[in-house]
């Protein structure tokens, strides 16, 4: 018995067909995946004192200020089974992915981009994923990652800022308002705070790993507890700053 068709050279047509098939698989499959994703774009009216509450499960959250008195929500939803149903009551927009998808199982990543008035308050939570907030000058900026994800707060001037994660870096670049409260907490990741040189605040910084660098903000009035905890005032200490990092670095930098 001879198997000549196995040793015979394929014809030109066959080779062209195979090449085309490989090309289609390599280059067209992302397009197919993209088509499986959902996109959500919505606009909501809002005044100067808008509040946005977002409870995500997994994915990146980006919030940035713009010069319009309205909220623009853009979302990329990985799974077609996932639902996102924002609710607006007065000037508060709530997006609760967890509640909206109860009983649906794994819904993959949902990436949000929110454009809000600069004076807005934003309260953001996710289980996994990065959170980026920029140019907000409202009452509250809260970013909480329950497990893994970086938090970047850029050009922020809110009277209350809370940034907390388990794994990941936290970066705050902004100003401390007089009488404001600021809390930064991470288990494994670096915390970097960039503020103007004339900032005035009362600081409590705790790092069991003894990795606290105040740089230009250090003064001799600080009470140093064995390098693990620093308590003291910078300037007149009108705002309150609390930083805790279990294993990473705490760094203060002049802006």
């Amino acid at each position: 018995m001879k198997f000549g068709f196995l040793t015979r050279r394929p014809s030109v047509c066959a080779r062209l067909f195979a090449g085309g098939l490989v090309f289609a698989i390599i280059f067209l499959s992302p397009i197919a995946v993209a088509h499986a994703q959902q996109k959500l774009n919505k606009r909501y009216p809002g005044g100067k004192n808008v509040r946005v509450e977002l409870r995500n499960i997994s994915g990146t959250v980006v919030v940035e200020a713009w010069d319009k008195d309205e909220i623009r929500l853009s979302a990329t939803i990985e799974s077609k089974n996932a639902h996102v149903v924002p609710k607006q009551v007065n000037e508060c927009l709530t997006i609760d992915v967890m509640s909206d998808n109860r009983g649906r199982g794994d819904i993959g990543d949902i990436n949000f981009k929110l454009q809000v008035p600069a004076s807005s308050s934003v309260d953001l939570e996710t289980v996994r994923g990065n959170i980026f907030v920029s140019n907000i000058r409202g009452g509250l900026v809260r970013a909480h990652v329950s497990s893994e994800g970086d938090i970047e707060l850029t050009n922020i001037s809110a009277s209350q800022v809370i940034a907390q994660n388990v794994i990941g870096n936290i970066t705050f670049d902004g100003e401390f308002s007089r009488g404001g409260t600021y809390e930064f907490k991470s288990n494994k990741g670096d915390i970097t705070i960039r503020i103007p040189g004339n900032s005035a605040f009362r600081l409590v910084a705790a790092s069991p790993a003894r990795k606290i660098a105040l740089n230009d903000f250090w003064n001799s009035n600080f009470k140093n507890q064995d390098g693990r905890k620093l308590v003291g005032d910078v300037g007149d200490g009108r705002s309150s700053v609390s930083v805790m990092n279990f294993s990473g670095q705490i760094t203060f930098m002049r802006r």
Partner: protein
Amino acid sequence: MNCETCQELIHDLVDGRITQNDESILNTHLNECLDCTSVRQDLATIVGFARTRRGEYEAPPNEQALWLRIRNVIEAEQVGQTVVSQNERRPSFLGRLMGHSWELSLPQLTAATAAIVLLVSLATVVGLRRWGTTGPFTPANVVQASASTNVNDRFIAKQQAISYWNQRIEQNKARWSPRMRETFEISLQVVDQAVSKSMDDLKQRPDDDFSEQMLDAAMEEKIALLQKFDKMSNF
């Protein structure tokens, strides 16, 4: 004549005070009644014996001393019997109190009542002062009390909470997606490292406030993580 009258006449006969008439009647009855004859013979024998032995028994030299000695012996025996009975069964204080007859006079009763009123008033004043110092039972006080408990108590309480949430998560973990399981495991590992490190620090320096604060914070972080993922389990 009957036997009763006969026996009375027998005594008179023995004493020699009987009349002739009675004696003849008595003899007539004695001739007919064997019982009364027997009584007369017994009595006559006793009286005759006593008469014949009169003067043979002399009085003791000091009769009064003899009686004193006898009396002392009798009293000593009575005291001994009382002690033995007391040793055999001594009643308890309550038994004696209950068995006691409480008969108080009016002044005694008044004094007892005044003493009770005084004691109750004193106890009330002391109690109210203590209440004023510690304050009533409020949630704030409970928080303050729990904050003042030592590190071991707080550690045990937090450990119990962690065990509870761990159990809940173990029950639901199988339904999680692989990615969610991986996220949880990585985060838990990091938080556990913080808890272990804080515990080690505290063991090395048991009086170190900072290590205690870090342990508290790390355990609270762990509880928060478990609660979050338990919420996700219901998702």
